[in-house]
């Protein structure tokens, strides 16, 4: 199962949740599948979906799901220690781990080779870390939301993209409608 198909199966679980979505193909795919005011699309700044989502979870009490990628987490690995040391039970980090830099031509990442992001998250001090197959991710995410416990989910899926349009929405519009959804 590739990321696009994984995101499609997640829609019933995440559609009305606050979602901070990673730059590039993940945001474009989510936007084309199910554009919602509760989605914050990153149009730039690789690596910060986890940190932005975590900052949002620190600031308010609604659940926040950061949808990140293995390549992006690798660029901001230390944030796993920030997350672990300031735990917030309304935060879920979903790492879509397809072992590749999907938006740039599916070049392999080290997470697809010897590095286990789940093991890194645990070593950083994250208490609830689960690694699941793509097919099992909607249930794992629903369980994490129901448990109200900070959870890192590493979802192992296949490399590959589908052709979807780039997001042409103005960044201020994305932010303002997202902030209105947060405050609602």
């Amino acid at each position: 199962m590739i990321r696009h198909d994984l995101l499609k199966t997640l829609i019933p679980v995440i559609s009305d949740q606050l979602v901070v979505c990673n730059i590039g193909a993940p945001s474009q795919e989510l936007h084309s599948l199910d554009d919602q005011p509760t989605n914050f699309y990153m149009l730039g700044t690789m690596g910060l979906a986890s940190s932005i989502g975590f900052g949002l979870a620190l600031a308010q009490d609604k659940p926040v799901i950061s949808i990140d990628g293995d390549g992006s987490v690798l660029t901001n690995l230390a944030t796993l220690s920030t997350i672990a040391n300031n735990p917030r039970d309304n935060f879920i980090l979903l790492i879509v781990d397809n072992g590749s830099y999907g938006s740039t031509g599916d070049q392999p990442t080290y997470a697809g080779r010897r590095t286990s992001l789940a093991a890194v998250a645990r070593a950083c001090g994250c208490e609830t870390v689960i690694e699941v197959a793509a097919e099992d991710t909607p249930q794992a995410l629903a369980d994490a939301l129901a448990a109200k416990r900070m959870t890192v989910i590493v979802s192992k899926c296949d490399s590959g993209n589908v052709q979807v349009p780039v997001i042409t929405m103005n960044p201020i519009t994305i932010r303002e409608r997202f902030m209105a959804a947060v405050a609602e």
Partner: protein
Amino acid sequence: MAKEMDKRIIGDFVENGVDFVTSVPCKQLAGVIEVLDRTPAIKHVPSNKEDEGMGLCAGAYMGGMRPAIFMQNTALGVVVNTLATLIQFYQIPLPMLISYRGEVGEPVACQVEMALHTKAILNQLHIPTYHFHRPEDADELPGILNHTRMCSKPVAILTDASFWRDAT
């Protein structure tokens, strides 16, 4: 040991409504961070790197808080993309209290190398920049913090060695 100036700076941030600060430490900011850690009105979440910290600030802002970042000027070398594509692109107000290492009084030669680029990077990014060189320059801080919110931009407050040497 924190100085009166450290308390005054944190007091100005609190007065302005800043309630979320992330920091990467610098020796010149040690007193400010010490005061920050005993200021319940501000949630302090240290970050490992300043781009990560700006991500936290962006999220906290969207969650209804008023963020700020405390950092060293050398970090401008790692946050250019984050400033341009996150903080500026999404128009997030962000006061940056910056230890301006490498100015007169600096004991570490290597710090001068990034001091040479500090204002050039800030100018290139069109970031409003204020330089505290004498203790009385800190009188401007409340106005600068208001200005940051008014214009929804990142704003740099550079604090150099002379400022910290003369501050009581």
